[in-house]
């Protein structure tokens, strides 16, 4: 078991992959350290959201992902 990090939309290009697994638990500092400097820079942008276990976090810096949970990194959307 581990924490699965998903890179959505353009973040997958910056990460060079759609997802990766890291050891849990995972907090905000651990996330920034795990994703490389480019994605970490994007994560500091207010318009980039983080979801954990299917819920968007109101305060992404309060991330506390447990083993087996999925963390999704959500850049600004461009739907419809």
């Amino acid at each position, binding site marked *: 078991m581990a924490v699965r990090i*998903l890179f*959505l*939309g*353009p973040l997958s*290009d910056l990460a060079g992959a759609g997802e990766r697994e890291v050891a849990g638990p995972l907090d905000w500092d651990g996330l920034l350290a795990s994703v490389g400097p480019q994605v970490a820079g994007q994560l500091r942008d207010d318009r980039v959201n983080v*979801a954990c276990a*299917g819920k*968007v976090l109101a305060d992404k810096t309060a991330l506390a992902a447990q083993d087996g949970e*999925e963390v*999704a990194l*959500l*850049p*600004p*959307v*461009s*739907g*419809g």
Partner: protein
Amino acid sequence: MARKWRCSLRCRVARLSVRSPADIRLLDRGLSVGEGLAAFNAAHGEAGAIASFLGKVRPDGDVKALELTHYAPLTQPGMESLAQQAIARFSLDGVLAWHRVGVMQPGDAIVLVAAAARHRRDAFDATMFVMDHLKSAAWFWKRERRGSDPDGEWRWVEPRGEDHADLARWTTPD
């Protein structure tokens, strides 16, 4: 309600049924606009006003393909919640929101939204409300491939400034 309008292939008007009051779908293949609207119309026979919106892939310059990705654990619940907000905010008989994901060609339908109401203002406003949120506040990301090379590079599409302005008007008192 939905069962009432379920009908066999012999039914000429609507070959599929829509759920009432909200029919929300993520579709990974062709979106049947005509059948969707006919079924929605049939399901809301008492509504005096039906507004709808169809968004299609524009053959802009040399765009050859468009891909929409989404984050499934958020997308469908987000669209369901959006429909409930529209129902709470406007006087509606029903609302439909169908959204494509995957790879599309120019001319293909991306999104179909419809709202049925007693009066036209509610039907129009609800359709615009849902569209404005789908464009800027739903979990979709869009990229496109241009040029003649079938293995050409995909480029991510940035959100448009107008889309955020369109969304903002729903958070200020009218």
